[in-house]
């Protein structure tokens, strides 16, 4: 319960903290949930389901207040808790950092994210899932660059998906005692019902991830959002959907998996290729990274649908990796945009001469993003591609194109923006806070690249249990 109360309280306190101390308060305050999750980690035995705070009775129309986490959820909680200090730190010397409103909304969002990951009840999951949408929408609305059509599109798109998920939950409840996770899993469905229930969940998740035909809200939203908003969206919000696929969608309606697997894997692979090709042609730096994100996440979504123990572990590694990368990439984008005043990479160039520190770290992030060996991306993508190839070799080969496309669009972005020579270029090098963020991200990518078992060990047992549920 303290996992929900502390971020929420921090959010409320943000309103009363004086304006010139708020960024310091945000940074220090966001470390508290981080410490808390580490505390939870220290008491965690792999493979168990740890209860957090539960009222098991039927509270209202079958909703129970069950809260627990397994290894996968705990990893997501750690990711959430540690992303916030990084996001606040990268935001430290920007305009947004002096806004109490922004910090409050970010903390409210953290409450919602923790809720999503510890929810042990279908409706509770849905409630927190929707709850996260409100703060992020307000952040984008108040601090974005004012493209309201994009925002409305984003909100309506995600709402339509969520309502489909609600329909699926209500449908599923017809066969279950209550909305508690265990009861929902115990529900027996026919193959057809399983497919449609899964389709409802999948629509919600596919829109949020986003998987190929549902992605149209994403690039514009990213390019209108402020940096911190984009980071929150891509590093945390989208991961919620991937987590939902692993933990909720497939175990709840495994009867539909056989049919749904094909659809999502194929869509995911279309996303990989489509996102990659579009990213190569883009000139807006934020849009390049947005399409790159579609490409990367398509691979993860396809991998999750294979749903073997290795596929889940690999997806988790890749989820963590992508969060690290997206914070790094959007910080890069912000550094470039705020100092050159344009989002167009063809108008940049020659920056490497002026800002060697930035050039170095951008290069590191680029390398991690194209998944060279010893970066976290390598092991994750390699395992995912192996699992997809075992499912269907031809699909595996198509999916492997992500490596090629990734190299092209990332190195193109780097080359156009950084290399060359430009007369009279004013470009300040990294400030200390940006440098610290890049250092942490770089080191993390390296650590998880060298020792992916840190993540693998945590999720292995839970993943095995989930595959066991699905197999039976």
């Amino acid at each position: 319960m303290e996992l929900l109360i502390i971020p929420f309280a921090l959010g409320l306190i943000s309103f009363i903290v004086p304006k010139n101390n708020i960024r310091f308060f945000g940074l220090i305050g966001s470390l508290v949930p981080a410490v808390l999750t580490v505390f939870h980690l220290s008491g965690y035995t792999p493979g168990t389901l740890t209860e957090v705070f539960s009222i098991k009775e039927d509270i209202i129309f079958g909703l129970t207040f069950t809260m627990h986490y397994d290894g996968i959820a705990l990893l997501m909680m750690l990711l959430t808790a540690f992303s916030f200090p990084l996001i606040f730190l990268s935001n430290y010397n920007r305009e947004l950092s002096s806004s109490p409103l922004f910090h409050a909304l970010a903390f409210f969002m953290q409450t919602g994210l923790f809720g999503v990951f510890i929810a042990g009840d279908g409706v509770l999951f849905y409630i927190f899932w929707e709850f996260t949408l409100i703060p992020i929408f307000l952040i984008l609305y108040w601090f974005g660059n004012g493209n309201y059509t994009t925002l409305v599109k984003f909100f309506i798109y995600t709402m339509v998906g969520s309502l489909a998920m609600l329909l699926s939950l209500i449908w599923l409840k017809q066969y279950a005692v209550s909305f508690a996770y265990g009861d929902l899993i115990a529900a027996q469905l026919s193959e057809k019902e399983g497919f449609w229930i899964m389709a409802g969940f999948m629509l919600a998740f596919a829109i949020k991830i986003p998987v190929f035909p549902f992605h149209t809200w994403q690039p514009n939203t990213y390019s209108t959002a402020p940096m911190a908003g984009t980071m929150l969206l891509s590093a945390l919000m989208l991961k919620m959907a991937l987590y939902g696929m692993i933990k909720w969608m497939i175990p709840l309606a495994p009867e539909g998996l056989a049919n749904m697997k094909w659809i999502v894997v194929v869509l995911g692979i279309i996303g990989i290729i489509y996102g990659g090709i579009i990213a190569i042609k883009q000139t807006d730096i934020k849009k390049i990274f947005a399409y790159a994100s579609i490409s990367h996440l398509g691979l993860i979504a396809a991998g999750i649908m294979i749903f073997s123990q290795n596929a889940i572990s690999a997806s988790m590694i890749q989820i963590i990796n992508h969060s690290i990368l997206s914070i790094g990439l959007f910080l890069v984008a912000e550094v470039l945009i705020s100092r050159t005043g344009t989002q167009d990479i063809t108008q940049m160039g020659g920056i490497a001469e002026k800002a060697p520190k930035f050039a170095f770290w951008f290069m590191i992030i680029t390398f991690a993003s194209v998944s060279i060996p010893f970066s976290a991306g390598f092991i994750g993508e390699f395992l995912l591609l192996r699992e997809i190839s075992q499912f269907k070799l031809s699909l595996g080969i198509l999916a492997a194109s992500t490596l090629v496309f990734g190299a092209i669009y990332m190195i193109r972005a780097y080359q156009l923006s950084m290399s060359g020579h430009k007369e009279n270029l004013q470009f300040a090098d990294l400030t200390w806070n940006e440098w610290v963020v890049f250092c942490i991200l770089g080191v993390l990518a390296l650590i998880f690249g060298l020792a992916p078992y840190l993540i693998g060990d945590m999720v292995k047992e839970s993943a095995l249990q989930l595959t066991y549920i699905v197999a039976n």
Partner: protein
Amino acid sequence: MEAIVIIFISALISLFLGILKKPTLVMVVSIAGLAIGAIVQNYEWYFLNEKYQLLDFNDSNIQFLNLAVTLTGIIILSGYKHFMDEPATIGDFSALMLFSLSGGLCLIGFKDLFMFFLGLEILSIPLYVLAGSKKKSASSSEAALKYFYLGSFATALLLFGIALVYGTVGTFNIEKIGFISMLFTDQLPSMFFVGVLFMLAAMLFKVGAFPFHFWVADVYQGSPSVFMTYMSSVVKLIGIYAFYRLFGMMFPGVETFWTTLIVIAIFVSMFIGNLSALNQDTFKRLMAFSSITNGAYALMTVLTYKSGSDALLVYMVGYGFSVVALMTINMLVNDNDDKLSSLAGIGYKNPLIGVVGIVALLSVAGIPPMTGFFGKAMVFYQAFEENMWLVSFALLNSAIGVYIYLKITMTLMKKDDNAAVISLNWSQQLVLSISLLALLFGWTILYF
């Protein structure tokens, strides 16, 4: 029973106190009357548990009484400023609202068609007057006239329907009618079905559902804001609950006949309400269309009368308080031109209005964790088993609704430094705070 008497008496007192032209005094008397009435009634229900022949408040409907009384109380509070502007007529306004409410309470507790009809008339007649109470405004007079003509027509239909049903079964008692319709389903003459049809038409008119929804927009827009709030929250609540009891208790035997018709009415109403609301630029008209849609969702509980009225209760807590909060905010900003655009930035500059506005709009859009979500989810959940497609379309409509309310939210919360800072007086602060609490925690009403 006691509640009706006490509220009626306090209405009479406030009517005569109007002579003194002291709005605060009238306000205090009315609200005290409401509070005492509700408390005495709850005391009687809880400790004495007496039974009456025609009218009964028991476990199943006491919460509806409490909700209706509370909503009326805070609507009177929120209309304080409006009343202050016209001290000469304050007594009339608050008295008429209380008269109307005491009729509404008959509609909540009725056990007999006679009481039902009486309640419906006492509820409606003051409303015709209130709708036209802004005497100098043409649209207000239009609203009153339209409401009166169409309302009387619906009443006539209802009366005719009651007569036909009575002619068939020979009793006014709704439980007996229920028994007869269950036992002799095959032998009922067509006269009975015509009666059911007429009653159905009249009730659909009263709750403003398709195909009798045409009056809603004009009447709501023309009426003064306070009374429009009353109509779309309290009257809607009472109307739908009466509908639920009437059909659930009287005609379970001929269910197949009327459920189909209600399903069609709900289906079309949802779309009409939402699609008409999409491009409105005046706030009250938008809320009128939104009330058609929300009424349609609430009507689903009539279909699932077997599962009880909990869903309706929670739904109406969410919807009723949202309407009160939103209309209070609207009254603060504009009372005459009623443009949506004049709300711009108000919520951003005034934190209390902003928070309440966001919560109310999210609640009416059905986004968790507000009460509106719980209500909607319960209603849909109950209806899902038998009417899966209807619920699917209702969820689609919720998505359209989200767009409508999101647009208002965005207008209200616009980052506009030139927006007015509004000073709230105590009654408005109280109304907004109560609404906020009810919208966040209102679903716990099931535990009281």
